[in-house]
């Protein structure tokens, strides 16, 4: 899918780098260097070695007999939940931290919502001996206490974002401001396919290992490299783009991106950026986002903190506008039901984010020969509090 993006970082009309001049040198340095560095043989060797030996890749592509029977198709789960730190996020943090080292950076900063990307970043920093500061909304710090403890144990400093709504978008604003103030020695590890060019492309490249493996694994299991469906949840959209990456250019595979509808797309309590469909600029990138008529960014809602973001990666806006992927949405309740079902029928407790992708299965009409891959982006330990309330 490399050809989808132009030299200025635009996927069609989406993306770009709408940054204040203060950020220009930081972003330019990345734009000028990341391709050469990350495509070098020694980078790829180091990246692949850590993914294999430390992260635990390749993750299994698990054929679920129970779900296959239930939904009348050949159903596979891509087990990103079995990665070290419990989600796909670490694929990207490992890639970016090697890049940061090769750019001579000494400090890492990152934003986090639920804390998954924060933990994955703190983990990579501990491994590589880099100084680490994580920006997290003050409200999220309260909501996600276990992940805050993990980040601290891993040696990271956790700084509360107290501006605006005190959640993910504000943590991102604070991290960007911190980067402005430390332009020379600091690298900012963005956790999703959002932000100014080249982040969306870079993060997609690092996450593309997911679909690379699916291709290889399906060739063995099913004798094809083209599944009929790939289903993934989408907030910013990093696990989805990782799962879609190698299938975008084939006309056979149907790509389905599942947004978080929250209490319902029209409820005012939602995080379905595509469904609400207004183009604009968020975090330096042109994309679909949730906003008022006056252009003020609206606070989203989803039961899943990882999908609780008012925008979406520009590549997804492009996939939507060009009909290369289908975008749907799933409510909080539907996701909870699907998560509970997976726990009871497969013995896997999925992250609430991934439960959105699973819930989409209920809405599909498969043929029995269809090969379907659901990206199980993370595990549900962090969501036990929410699941527990639901069981009661």
């Amino acid at each position, binding site marked *: 899918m490399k050809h989808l993006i132009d030299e200025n970082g635009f996927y069609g009309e989406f993306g770009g780098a709408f940054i204040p001049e*203060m950020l220009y040198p930081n972003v330019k340095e990345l734009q000028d260097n990341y391709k050469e560095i990350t495509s070098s043989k020694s980078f790829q060797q180091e990246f692949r070695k850590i993914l294999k030996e430390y992260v635990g890749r390749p993750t299994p592509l698990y054929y679920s007999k129970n779900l296959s029977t239930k939904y009348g198709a050949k159903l596979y789960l891509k087990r990103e939940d079995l990665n070290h730190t419990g989600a796909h996020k670490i694929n990207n943090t490992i890639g970016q931290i090697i890049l940061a080292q090769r750019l001579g950076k000494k400090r890492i900063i990152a934003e986090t919502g639920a804390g998954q990307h924060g933990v994955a970043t703190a983990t990579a920093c501990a491994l590589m001996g880099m100084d680490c500061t994580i920006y997290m909304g003050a409200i999220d710090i309260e909501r996600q206490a276990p992940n805050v403890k993990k980040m601290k144990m891993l040696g990271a400093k956790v700084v509360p974002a107290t501006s605006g709504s005190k959640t993910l978008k504000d943590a991102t604003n604070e991290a960007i401001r911190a980067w402005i103030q430390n332009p020379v020695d600091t690298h900012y590890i963005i956790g999703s396919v959002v932000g100014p060019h080249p982040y969306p492309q870079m993060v997609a490249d690092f996450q593309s290992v997911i679909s690379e493996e699916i291709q290889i694994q399906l060739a063995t299991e099913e004798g094809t490299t083209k599944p009929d469906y790939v289903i993934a949840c989408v907030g910013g959209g990093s696990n989805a783009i990782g799962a879609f990456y190698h299938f975008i250019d084939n006309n056979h595979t149907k790509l389905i991106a599942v947004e978080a509808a929250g209490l319902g797309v029209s409820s005012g309590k939602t995080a379905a950026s595509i469904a609400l469909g207004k183009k604009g600029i968020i975090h330096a990138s042109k994309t679909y986002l949730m906003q008022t008529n006056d252009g003020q960014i609206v606070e989203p809602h989803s039961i899943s903190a990882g999908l609780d973001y008012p925008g979406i990666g520009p590549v997804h806006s492009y996939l939507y506008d060009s009909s290369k992927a289908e975008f749907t949405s799933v409510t909080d309740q539907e996701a909870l039901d699907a998560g509970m079902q997976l726990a009871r029928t497969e013995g896997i407790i999925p992250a609430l984010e991934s439960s959105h992708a699973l819930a989409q299965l209920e809405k599909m009409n498969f043929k029995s020969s269809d090969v379907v891959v659901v990206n199980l982006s993370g595990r549900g330990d962090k969501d036990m509090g929410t699941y527990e309330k639901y069981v009661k």
Partner: protein
Amino acid sequence: MNNRITSLFERKKKDILNIYFTAGYPELDDTARILKHISTLDVDLVEIGIPFSDPLADGPTIQNSGSIALENGISLAKIFEQLEGVRETVDTPIILMGYLNSLLQFGEKEFCQRCEEVGVDGLIIPDMPLGYYQKHYETLFKKHGLVNIMLVTPETSEERIREIDAKSEAFIYAVSSNSITGGSVNVNAQVEYYNRLNAMNLTTPHLIGFGVSDRDSFNNVCQYSAGGIIGSAFIKAINQEGALEENVTKFITEIRSKN
């Protein structure tokens, strides 16, 4: 072209004072009130901030004033309403400062049209890259008599400063440090940067902003440039107890006092 900002810089070369304030703050209808009062004082230029929910380049003081203004009910449409008719009494050049998303949602053409109608002279859109401006906005801005004011920072390369200089019409906004607005700044540490800017013999004059907060820091930046921009300190000053006009007068008088 008879732009009030370019005329100002032709007429005045030193000690230019640019005051920034947030539209709709402290109270919704204070925008025109502050503007009208400032125009009676020794202020050369005003910059009115368009509040935005996610202002990446702004520090806590300006962010906070923007949040309050939004709660007060400010919007871009409302700002234009508030500026309607101010040109009957106000001659001071007016700059609107805001983020690109606000323009996009308002409609770029309508935005520029309204700016011209109410008498806005220039724009600072910090998240609009130079290349994007040239491609999408330059013609439109010119058509409506609006000058685009761009920023440079201590990290901006000489090559890029020259590019920005070539594309600037009125003045360059020189950010004093690698900072967001309202940050504390060791002004002395900036001398090297200021000297470097001056040694480049740019065709466009520059004003220095970020960290300029009182008479001393204003006088200091004036030594190295055509003048200074004060934002956060002014916002704090007008949020003090007492009548708005008195607070404004007191602040400006203090900045302009000789000793």
